[in-house]
């Protein structure tokens, strides 16, 4: 069954304390090649049957109304993926 993937990230100007904590943990494990980490969310919306433009539009609206808070987050991608 196809899925609609929605990705949400904290706005660039919002400090991301979780990302910062992850960034500071990486060097302890020897991963020293990264200067920063930002943590976001990925949602997978499963669709029975075909992904019509109407269903995709519903996903976009759900992403703006529920899956993200526009005060602190941006919806960075809404896309269709095939079977896992």
């Amino acid at each position, binding site marked *: 069954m196809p899925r609609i993937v929605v990705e949400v990230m*904290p706005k660039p*100007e*919002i*400090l991301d*304390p*979780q990302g910062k*904590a992850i960034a500071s943990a990486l060097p302890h494990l020897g991963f020293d090649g990264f200067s920063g980490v930002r943590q976001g969310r990925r949602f997978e919306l499963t669709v029975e049957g075909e992904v019509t433009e109407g269903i995709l539009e519903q996903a976009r609206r759900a992403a703006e109304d*529920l*899956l993200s*808070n526009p*005060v*602190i987050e941006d919806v960075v991608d809404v896309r269709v993926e095939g079977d896992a």
Partner: protein
Amino acid sequence: MSPQTPPTPAETPLIGDYAESSAALTGARIGVVTFPGTLDDRDAARAVRLAGGTAVALWHADDDLGDVDAVIVPGGFSYGDYLRAGAISRFAPMMTSIAREAQTGTLPVLGICNGFQILTEAHLLPGSMIRNDHLKFRCADQVLRVENTSTAWTSQYTDDELITVVLKNQDGRYVADEETLTRLEEEGRVVFRYVGSNPNGSRNDIAGITNAAGNIVGLMPHPEHAVEAGYGPDDAVGMRAGTDGLTVFTSVISSLTSSGAAL
């Protein structure tokens, strides 16, 4: 053993009967909303009763506000804080009814902790709360300065009064864009501000704010946990003797009775 019908478990009410044993001093009726995962509804209802009002239980799935004169959206972890704190609760039928009444600028609404988060998710108050800057759950007595005494919920405090109430949260860091922060400061809409060290990285040390009309107030700390000697924060009188939060509840009852709304 032969299969038996399991005993019917004693029914645990999901929502309290706050009307019992209430000898309200005034006619003020304050609704207290319960969502799945709300923790502090009974404390808020008790604070209302101690302040002389009548607490009315409101269930999230109902949409009838009844004849309440004000509403408290209490703290806890509604819907387990899934997605974002308050993100799912804001779509509850009761929240739709509260938003409709609150946006007229008359119904006093107080959001405490998770209730504040729900009010921001519902866009009834500006800004949002994100994870504390130190990433830990913090539970401690907290000093606040009351900077706006013109709201229904703070009218009995004195200007810049320092109060001590409990702070307990993990997502308590108030954030808003610069334009919103400037507007809040210029319009005197910062109602409570943290005093001493900032406990969570909130912008401008903001602990609580109000809307432009002044009827909706939200704050992260818990005034309802500082209403009864023996169960409050430590103060000069003794351990757990602090009752600085009670004035929030006497304020709204006073505002309601003086305006005639509850008579």
